[in-house]
């Protein structure tokens, strides 16, 4: 059971997903603490941090840190694989994903996450199926928007 996951870039929180109910202030406080701890880690250290009664699993990809706070009995090594899978999905979707992609398309990053993970657990273990679902949802979105904008353009709405 994963409690929250975050992407941090240059000390700034880019995305965060919470699977437990906490107040905004609590979330802010936790985020600050975890960001501080993760950024303080040296490269030679292992990817796991103990924090309160949870474990923080984190991995760095270029300028971004991906962090997951999991319960104590979780398998840390498979959590690393989960993180890696998510990055792969982003990479496939955006084509060699970089931080700017996530900044300018944050809602897409969330959609992808929500197709991969639900309630803190992986819902689909096939990369292909996740990407297909996103693709089709995107198409649905385009279809919904396309007729309208054409009509708007010719001034009929």
């Amino acid at each position, binding site marked *: 059971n994963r409690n929250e996951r975050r992407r941090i870039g240059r000390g700034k*929180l*880019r*995305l*965060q*997903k919470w*699977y437990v*109910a*906490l*107040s905004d202030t609590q979330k*802010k406080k936790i985020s600050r603490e975890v960001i501080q701890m993760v950024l303080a880690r*040296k490269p*030679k*250290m*292992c*990817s*796991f*941090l*103990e924090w309160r009664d949870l474990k923080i699993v984190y991995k760095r990809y270029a300028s971004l840190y991906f962090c997951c706070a999991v319960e104590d009995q979780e*398998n*840390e*090594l*498979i959590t*690393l*694989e*989960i993180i890696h*899978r998510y990055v792969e999905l982003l990479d496939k979707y955006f084509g060699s994903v970089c931080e700017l992609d996530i*900044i*300018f398309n*944050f*809602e897409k990053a*969330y*959609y992808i996450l*929500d*197709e991969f993970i*639900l*309630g803190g*657990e*992986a*819902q*689909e*273990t*096939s*990369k*292909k*199926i996740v990407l297909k*679902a996103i693709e*089709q*949802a995107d198409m*649905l*979105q385009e*279809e*919904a*928007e396309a007729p309208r904008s054409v009509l708007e353009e010719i001034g009929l709405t």
Partner: protein
Amino acid sequence: MPAPIRLRELIRTIRTARTQAEEREMIQKECAAIRSSFREEDNTYRCRNVAKLLYMHMLGYPAHFGQLECLKLIASQKFTDKRIGYLGAMLLLDERQDVHLLMTNCIKNDLNHSTQYVQGLALCTLGCMGSSEMCRDLAGEVEKLLKTSNSYLRKKAALCAVHVIRKVPELMEMFLPATKNLLSEKNHGVLHTSVVLLTEMCERSPDMLTHFRKLVPQLVRILKNLIMSGYSPEHDVSGISDPFLQVRILRLLRILGKSDDDSSEAMNDILAQVATNTETSKNVGNAILYETVLTIMDIKSESGLRVLAINILGRFLLNNDKNIRYVALTSLLKTVQTDHNAVQRHRSTIVDCLKDLDVSIKRRAMELSFALVNGNNIRGMMKELLYFLDSCDPDFKADCASGVFLAAEKYAPSKRWHIDTIMRVLTTAGSYVRDDSVPNLIQLITNSVEMHAYTVQRLYKALLDDISQQPLVQVASWCIGEYGDLLVSGQCEEEEPIQVTEDEVLDVLEGLLVSNLSAPVTRGYSLTAIMKLSTRFSSVNRIKKVVSIYGSSIDVELQQRAVEYNALFKKYDHMRPALLERMPIMEKTATNGPTEIVQTNGETESSALDSKHPPSITQPTNQANDLLDLLGGNDVPVIQTALPTKPASAGGELLDLLGDLSLSGGPTPAPAPSVPISQTPFLLDGLSSQPLFNDTAAGIPPMTAYNKNGLKIEFTFERSNPNPNISVITIHASNSTEADMTDFVFQAAVPKTFQLQLLSPSSNIVPALNQGSVTQVIRVLNPQKQQLRMRIKLTYTLKGAPVQDLAEVNNFPPQSWQ
């Protein structure tokens, strides 16, 4: 009204801000625009505005005014709106806002939508942030979707059900029917989420657990297929087929196999197979191995499998990847109690991990190292651990120090080694040592009688170097107070004795009193130590002066002590030697050593100190008197108080016992000193001290005083230190019969020219079959150096029948009384 700017444009604009203030200004401007747009109830751009709001929220700015707008988006028919609306709900709303309940109806509708992607959105949102009320309302819909043949929806419904169960555990039952054929699915997504659902149910309910045990064969089959089947591109990760599913299945098997022999047996083979066949070159393979090891250790696996598991962990320890080493140490820590020998084999690798750079690895390695210490490896291990203590982070020092003390106590190969180890810890990590270590150490030192001179010398030298580490200073003060006489007399055998005068010692102790580095507690120790030295040193006047100065100290604790000590000097000087005598060996109780010590020690508890006040002492005073009489002290008025536990008839019995031997004329008021007092308070022990060890070094051989009917009583001897006219005899009563001897009472009487004092026995029960002995100390004053004779009376109950016996002891070795 111009169209609100697009999301991407806003992001671009905000990123051009060079200062926080500039950014805030932009945000505020845009928020104002968005607010007015919301007020206009504009459907066209609501989606765009909420998206922008979400971005600003991510930057940390308040966005609560968009919550209702999210709900409107969710209610819209457009997919784009719904997508952003649900995202907004998950980011901005949670069960704390009443507003969230308004979502319920929308979600209900969307769960039944014709488009699966809309259903998906609803399931996702519900499964992520649904409150208990929402879950209650919508559980039925989720249950319906759990039975659908659409795998896209089924997998989401399963995880949504997990969330519902977590929020409203009572609803778990309703999902049971739908789980019937979940595992027959081919779709991996459904399989994975189904296993998660089953796991959740089994963890929550023992009944469910029992019910689902029958799935073990099916789970084993699925796992087997994953391993044996060829390359499947869709689910392959570095050559392994669907590691996520494998790990999940292994975890469920763990839960099902725990405490169940049949299930454990059914999974034995597959576990062995996974353990031996999984590719370990990448993290993903190791993740599976890790889970396998956890499962093997938790179920009732056969020993061969367990050894296999531990060996996997041992290999992990040698892996270059830190993460692998970390999980290995964590797992080994969990199994070290149950599979101790197997883990021992990897001890040297574990000790190497103490030198790792990573804090978490170091900590685990430390905990594991302590768990592996035993009588055989104590020397080597302690060397490593002390080296670790020197160089580790401050966060570790307290735990490491405690661990070292514990290990040393259990497995010290010699007393000298033990004291040296303690010294090493106190001098290198003295300020990190836990508070309760101080009384423990004091007890240890007290009981290591032959090391007293060595210990006090080393502690004194340490004090000369450094008085900042409070635990070290406290232990040192206490020891100097107790054994200062050994220090100045240069009696150390273990190392070169140092030359130090009484004044130098008092200088050091007084220095502690005035130093800014000393904590109030430390000052207390120091003052009491100085006071004790008044009976061990000759510079009594100097001590009197110090004590009287602190009678007006601002520190209330010090003041109280000083005033009491002053009183001791002035009004009760006759009691001073007895009160300040050496501490006896302290009984270590099985459970709570420290608190007992605190009372006997009388150092850290001022209440114990209070009872040293003459008026409040009852029994202790009598003992003190008796002791003084034995020592040939001055004529003193005996403070008559009753001995509460003394049975009235004992005096009579004693007279009977001593009839032939022409009793000693000594003090025989109603409280006769030779009757053992069974329930003495600890303070009593504290006042009548005696070195209790068998002084074989002094060369007096022990003797058997009595040996009849299975009861054997041995006498061991030593000379009391200050007064050579006193013989200290320790009786050891042992019982070779099959039953315990209870209510055991030992009485003794000596001829007229002697005086005898009997101290409390260690117990009234002599255990059967020589499983233990009762000890008791007799002090005999023999000023005329006459041949020692004794008559003893023994009473006890054996198998319900009372037994009584008299005997004369005449075979005392000459050295015991000459």
